[in-house]
């Protein structure tokens, strides 16, 4: 059963991995994906992430259930932050655990592809240069839609 959190506060990646494997001796592989805020060549002051409360958690849980149906996972943890996130800070964490690495890698890859396109979050860039005006909404990438086709 996956565990999903949508929160503004930061998280401790090592603690999340430890919690997923605590007291277990059957886990052979843990894969972690950490999404961080990049500074866009030094121009970004912060990412502002808006979300749809309730639906965001629900969609992530639905995608986790799909991953658990496709691969033999022993654990699945997803955390997605919202609010203002400065360069270098955490945005999203996916941790998958399985007996063998192939399933853990594939499930984490699948989860990120689906999160990007199906979970109701919207990013906008707040620039350091005040002359840049209002923060601009990030446009979805065509690559992200293509990435989903790999799993169909």
């Amino acid at each position, binding site marked *: 059963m996956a565990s999903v959190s949508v929160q503004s506060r930061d998280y401790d990646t090592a603690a999340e991995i430890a919690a997923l494997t605590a007291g277990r001796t059957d886990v052979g592989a843990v894969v972690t994906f950490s999404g961080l805020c990049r500074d866009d060549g030094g121009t970004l002051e912060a990412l502002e992430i808006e979300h749809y409360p309730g639906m965001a958690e629900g969609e992530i849980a639905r995608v986790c259930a799909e991953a658990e149906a496709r691969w033999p996972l022993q654990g699945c943890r997803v955390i997605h932050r919202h609010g203002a996130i400065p360069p270098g800070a955490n945005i999203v964490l996916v941790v998958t655990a399985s007996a063998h690495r192939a399933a853990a890698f594939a499930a984490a890859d699948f989860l*990120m592809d689906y999160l990007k396109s199906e979970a*109701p979050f*919207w*990013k906008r860039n707040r620039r350091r240069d005040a002359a840049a005006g209002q923060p601009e909404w990030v446009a979805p990438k065509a690559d992200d839609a293509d990435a989903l086709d790999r799993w169909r």
Partner: protein
Amino acid sequence: MKALYFAWVRERIGVAEEEIEPPAAVATLGELMGWLAGRGENYAHAFENPAVIRTAVDRLHAKHDAPFAGAREVAFFPPMTGG
């Protein structure tokens, strides 16, 4: 029924959520966007290109031809950019 708007759809309309009472002839989400677009310049701007707007009924993704009868909550938003 509650209507929710997110990201630039919310900004263009000027509110994050509101109660709406569309007429009975408005049955699908696509028709609902057309009805909303007629409510003022801000709505017309938000829904000027409905093909790019994503829609949800009671917090589940739904296509534009989906009916919304009985829904508690409908939502309109741009393509998502999380992760």
